[in-house]
């Protein structure tokens, strides 16, 4: 099959189109803007709706409205814009509206910069807005993943009636790789809850207001049970050379590719290192971490493009079973040599 050369942002947008998404609402921000630009160019030709909203708040509420009709709908932004969307995301999670929200992330806090980062990990995996809720979070590591995860994101969103976030570092949005274009799918999920005009049936009502305390608690218990089901079924990770590893690197997104190179290099030098790449950041693949510890990993090294966030989930997963260390940069993706240096230093100190 002939490949095409795409930027991550373009591949993600094309993946959404191939998943049947025909509505995009957004407000541009570097390094995510190519997603909006791609939709703006493509939708007029294929009968989709591209709307540049007056703000991120407006955009996310347009997503709320469009998703209420059962349509596949998407928005994309970067850190500061994702923060603005949080109120709407909380409403969407409570109303159980399927949609895809993309964060092509850059360094914060505040305006920060526009260089790559993974520092929105806490925001993405802890819900991000008010109330007890989660979004599913997928972390692509290649341009092909950007297309595939966009398509998968819509499936998961419909399956569990949950907002799905795709989070990728700015560099992954901007860089180009040759990819295979996937076949378009026809969305097949029944959506009896959608507000599609109530001819011949009772009106569907989508609301997030639950004033009686019993009703509110029941609602939260119900959402909790849904999150437990997703945790039981959907944890995903890629493992590499972990079977006999004494030292396990944990890295997601583009960073995992750098880490993989580093593992291959230190293996040549006789260090028994391995890699776990979380693909779902929520639910966090804690069982993969525990399994590596049970196989004899003494030490885990969390590699992140932030100041140490996923490292907490690794510690929670291990619950004291093995030691956990952290190495991170921000705005800069370390190269494999830098990681090899860090690993060799640890290996020497620990006598691995």
């Amino acid at each position: 099959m002939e490949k095409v050369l795409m930027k991550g942002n373009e591949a993600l947008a094309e993946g959404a189109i191939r998943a049947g998404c025909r509505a995009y609402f957004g407000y541009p921000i570097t390094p995510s803007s190519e997603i909006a630009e791609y939709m703006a160019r493509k939708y007029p030709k294929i009968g989709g709706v591209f709307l540049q909203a007056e703000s991120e708040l407006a955009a996310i509420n347009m997503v709320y409205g469009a998703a209420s009709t059962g349509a596949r709908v998407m928005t994309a932004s970067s850190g500061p814009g994702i923060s603005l969307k949080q109120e709407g995301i909380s409403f969407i999670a409570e109303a159980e509206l399927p949609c895809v929200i993309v964060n092509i992330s850059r360094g914060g806090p505040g305006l920060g910069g526009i260089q790559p980062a993974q520092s929105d990990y806490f925001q993405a995996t802890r819900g991000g807005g008010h109330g007890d809720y989660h979004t599913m979070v997928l972390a692509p590591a290649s341009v092909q993943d950007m297309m595939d995860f966009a398509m998968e994101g819509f499936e998961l969103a419909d399956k569990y009636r949950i907002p799905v976030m795709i989070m990728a570092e700015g560099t992954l949005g901007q860089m180009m790789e040759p990819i295979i274009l996937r076949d378009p799918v026809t969305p097949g999920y029944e959506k009896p809850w959608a507000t599609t005009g109530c001819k011949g049936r009772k009106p569907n009502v989508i609301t997030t207001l639950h004033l009686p305390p019993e009703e509110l608690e029941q609602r939260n218990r119900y959402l909790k049970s849904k999150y437990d089901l997703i945790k039981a079924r959907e944890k995903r990770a890629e493992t590499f050379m972990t079977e006999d590893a004494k030292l396990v690197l944990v890295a997601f997104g583009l960073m995992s590719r750098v880490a993989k190179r580093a593992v291959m290099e230190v293996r040549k030098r006789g260090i028994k290192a391995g890699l776990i790449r979380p693909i779902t950041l929520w639910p966090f693949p804690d069982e993969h971490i525990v399994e590596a510890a049970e196989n004899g990993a003494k030490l885990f090294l969390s590699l992140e493009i932030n100041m140490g966030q996923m490292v907490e989930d690794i510690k929670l997963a291990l619950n004291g079973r093995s030691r956990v260390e952290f190495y991170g940069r921000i705005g800069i993706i370390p190269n494999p040599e830098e990681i090899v240096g860090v690993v060799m230093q640890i290996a020497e100190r620990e006598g691995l």
Partner: protein
Amino acid sequence: MASTIIFSGGFGSGKSEIALNFTLEKKGEDNRETILADLDLVNPYFASREMKGFLQARGIRVLAPAGELVFGDVPSIPSEIIGLLQQENRIIIDLAGDEVGAVVLGYIRDYLLKRKDLEFFLVINPYRPFAGDVESIKELKNCLEKASGLNFTGIISNPNLVEETTVQVINDGHNKVLQYAEELNLPVRYLTVEERFYEELVVYYPQLLKKIKINLRPQWI
């Protein structure tokens, strides 16, 4: 080769890598005063300004957004460009993609037209989105010419799938670009390929072929 060379095209068509290579090659040939103007004001990812130190060490002046704006995405045009365009020198201009990238030329168009020889190249990689058929390319060409107020003088054929490029990928892609060129009534001036393909292909394209060293793409991808 002209004293003013501008590379324009779609996003990700290869403009920055090609501009860097042309700049180094021309400077190496005649040691004439050479300026690389990085006018990519859309965003700083994979822009030729990343090579500023390397180029300066080789006597090439790099014009790019100043100070911390190097890392920014604001429309900051290096102020010296107006003065430099009125002097004797060689200026190579690297733009951001699409019409949003070419629009900056509108601002310096009058100075560009006063220079005695001007090359305005349309860089095409037919494996990129919006470059896969003649209609898209026609639309791109019209948008770029309208935004810049300049007419293209030639095409640079840059068919590649980065690491997955093969001789066949180059040949098939180049044939497509030749068809575009005919439809657009523009000459293909160069066929750019990575160094590793040069020996094998130079016999087939002795006039057109130019080898390119990749500078901006991280090795670990």
